[in-house]
C-alpha cells in the first residue's frame, strides 16, 4: 500500500492486563461487595446463628431491587441527568394488572407477566417521549408520568381483586437445599444485563452516550434513541419486578412499590456506577442491593433506635460516595 506498511512493526499489546489483586481492589464494585460481606457477617456474629439462611433470604428479597435497579442503572448510565422516578408507580400498577389476569390461577402466568412488563414498557415510552422529545428534565418527566400512573392505579385497583398465581408465588420463594431459586434468577438476570452492558454493541452505546452524547452521535449512534430505549427498558424491568413482588407477597397492593423509588437509585450508586452516567456496574448493583436489603436487618437486630438507623443509612451512602474515586466529576 504505502510507506506506512514498510514501517518497522510496532509492538502492540492488545490484551488486557491480567486480573491482579490491585485491579480487584480498585474495581468500582468492590466497596459494595465488601460492605455486603461486612453487613452479612455482622448479622451472623451478633445473632450467632442462621448465617446461610440470612444470606439466602436476603438474596431473594434483594432480587426485586436488583431487577428494578438494573432498569434504573441503564437510565442513569445513559446520562443527561437520567433518573427514573416512575419505577415505584410502575411496579404497583403492573402488579395489579398481572394479578387481575392471573386471578389466583396458574393458567395465565405468562400472560400476566407479559402484560405487567408491557405496561411498564408503555410507561417508559411516555417518559422517553416527554424527556427526549418535549425536552423535560428526566427528574420531572418521570415524576409526572409517576403521578399519572398513581391515579390510574388508585382508580383501577378499586375494581380488582389482585391475587397472584400460586405457582409463581411458590417460584419466588422456592429453595433447593440452601439455594434460593429466585435468588439464582436474580443472579442470572444480573449476569445477563452485565453481558448486555459490557459485551454487546447496544451496551457499549449506552455507556458511550452517557459519557459524550455528541461524540457518540458522530460515532454512528442516535443518542436520543439510545436514551429513550433506556427509559423503556427501565419501565419494563420495573413492571417485571412489580409482578414478581406481587407474586412473592401473594397479591398486589397499593404502596407495593413505594420503597423502591429511592432505593433503586441508591443501589446503582452504591454499586459503583457513576450518577453522571457513562459507567454502569451491574455486579456492584447486585451487591449493593443485597447490602441495602440486609442493612435494615442489621439495624433491626442491633436494636438501635430508628433515629440512629436512619442516620447510619444516610451517613453510609455519603461515605461510600465520598470514598469512591470518580474519574470524571459530577453532573
Amino acid at each position, binding site marked *: 500500500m504505502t510507506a506506512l506498511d514498510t514501517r518497522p512493526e510496532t509492538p502492540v499489546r492488545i490484551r488486557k492486563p491480567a486480573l491482579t489483586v490491585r485491579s480487584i481492589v480498585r474495581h468500582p464494585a468492590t466497596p459494595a461487595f465488601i460492605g455486603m460481606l461486612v453487613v452479612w457477617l455482622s448479622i451472623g456474629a451478633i445473632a450467632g446463628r442462621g448465617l446461610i439462611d440470612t444470606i439466602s433470604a436476603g438474596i431473594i428479597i434483594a432480587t426485586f431491587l436488583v431487577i428494578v435497579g438494573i432498569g434504573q442503572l441503564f437510565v442513569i448510565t445513559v446520562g443527561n*441527568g437520567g*433518573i427514573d422516578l416512575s419505577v415505584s408507580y410502575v411496579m404497583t400498577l403492573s402488579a395489579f394488572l398481572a394479578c387481575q389476569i392471573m386471578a389466583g390461577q396458574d393458567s395465565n402466568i405468562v400472560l400476566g407477566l407479559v402484560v405487567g412488563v408491557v405496561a411498564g414498557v408503555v410507561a417508559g415510552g411516555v417518559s422517553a417521549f*416527554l424527556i*427526549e*422529545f*418535549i*425536552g*423535560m*428534565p428526566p*427528574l*420531572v*418527566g418521570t*415524576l*409526572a*408520568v*409517576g*403521578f*399519572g400512573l*398513581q*391515579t*390510574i392505579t*388508585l*382508580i383501577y385497583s378499586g375494581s380488582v381483586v389482585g391475587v397472584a398465581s400460586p405457582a409463581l408465588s411458590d417460584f419466588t420463594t422456592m429453595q433447593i437445599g440452601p439455594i434460593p431459586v429466585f435468588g439464582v434468577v436474580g443472579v442470572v438476570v444480573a449476569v445477563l444485563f452485565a453481558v448486555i452492558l459490557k459485551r454487546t454493541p447496544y451496551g457499549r452505546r449506552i455507556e458511550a452516550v452517557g459519557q459524550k*452524547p*455528541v461524540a457518540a*452521535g*458522530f460515532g454512528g449512534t442516535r*443518542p*436520543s434513541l439510545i436514551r429513550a430505549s433506556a427509559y423503556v427498558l427501565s419501565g419494563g424491568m420495573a413492571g417485571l419486578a412489580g409482578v414478581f413482588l406481587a407474586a412473592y407477597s401473594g397479591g398486589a397492593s397499593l404502596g407495593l412499590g413505594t420503597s423502591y423509588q*429511592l432505593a433503586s*437509585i*441508591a443501589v446503582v*450508586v452504591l454499586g459503583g456506577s457513576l*450518577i*453522571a452516567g457513562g459507567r454502569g456496574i451491574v455486579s456492584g448493583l447486585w451487591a449493593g442491593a443485597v447490602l441495602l436489603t440486609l442493612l435494615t436487618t442489621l439495624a433491626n437486630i442491633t436494636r438501635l*433506635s*430508628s*433515629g*440512629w*438507623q*436512619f*442516620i*447510619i*443509612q*444516610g*451517613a*453510609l*451512602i*455519603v461515605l461510600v*460516595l*465520598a470514598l469512591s474515586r*470518580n474519574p470524571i*466529576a*459530577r*453532573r
Partner: protein
Amino acid sequence: MTTSTVTRSPRPLGSSMRDRLGSAFGSWFLPSVAAVAIFAIMVALRPLVASTTGLNLVLAPLIPLVFAVLAQMFVVAAGDIDLGIGSFIGLANVVMAVVLPTDLVGGLLLLLVMLAGYAGMAVLISVRGLPSIVVTLGMSFVWLGIAILILPTPGGAVAPELVSFVRFTTPVVPGVVIVLTITTVLVALFLNRTKYGTVLRGSGSNAEGVRRAGWSVLRAKVSLYVLAGFFGLLSGLYLSGQTGGGDPYIASSYVLLSIAGVIVGGGSFRGGEVSAVGAVAGGLVVGLLGALLQFIGVQSSFQAAAQGLVLVLVLVLRASVAWIQKVRRTR
C-alpha cells in the same frame, strides 16, 4: 455582489426542544401569569378568597412552601439538586418545637450547626466533585434520623412568641402578603441588584469564567448552599409557628414540590438560570394547584394525575413559547 443572509439552522446533532427550554423563556413572566390566573379563577369561584381573611387562609400555608422553593432555587442556581430539603425543614421544625422552647441557646446553636451542615455539603460536593443528588439524598436520612432522635413521635410546643410572630397580620393588608412581598423583593434585589448575587448566578453558569475573574468558586457554592439552608430554616420557622408543634415528617412532600416549583418558576438545571420572582410564582402555582383542583371539584383520586398534567403543560408551554421566539428570530 449580493450578500446572502445566513440564518440560524437548528443546531446539528443531538438537538431537541430541550435546548429551547429555559433559555428564551427561562424567566419569571410565565409563572407569574400562571399564578395570577389560578388566583383569579379561585376568586371568581369563591369571591371570599379575595378578602383579608381569605388571603390569609389561602396563602398562609404556601409561605413555608415558597421558602422551600427559594431554598431549592439557590441549590439549582449552583447547578445542583437538593433531595434533602424536606427532612431538613422537618428537623428545623422539631428543633423549634422541642429544643428552642426549653433551651434557647442550645436550640439556636443546633440551627447554626444545621447551616454548617449545608456549608459542609457544599464543600464536599465542590471539592470531591460528588453528585449533589445522592449526597443530599443521603443527608436527608441523616436529618430525619436526628429529628426522630430529638422527637420520637410528633409533639412538642412552639413558643407562643413565635406563633404570634408567624400569625402577624394587619386588618387591611394580610400579613402573608406582606411577608411574601418583602421576601420576594429582598431575594430578587440580592440576586439581581447586588454584585455578589450576580457572582453567585454567574458561578452556576460558568464557574471557570467566574474563577478567572478573580472570585472563589468554592465560596460561591458554600454561599448558595448556606442561603438554601437559611431559607430551609425560615420554612421550618413558618411551619413551626403555623402548626405550633413538631413533626419530623412534616415537610417530606416539599422535596419534589420545591423542585417542581423552581422549574415551573423558570429555573433550569443548567445552573445560574434562576429568578426569585419566578421561584416565588412557581411555588405559588404548585401550591395553589391543589386548592384550585379542589375548588373546581376534581375528584380526590384524580389530583395526582392533574398535578402531573399541569407540570407537563407548563413545561410544554414554555418550550413552545421559546420555540416560537426562535422561529420568529430567524425570519
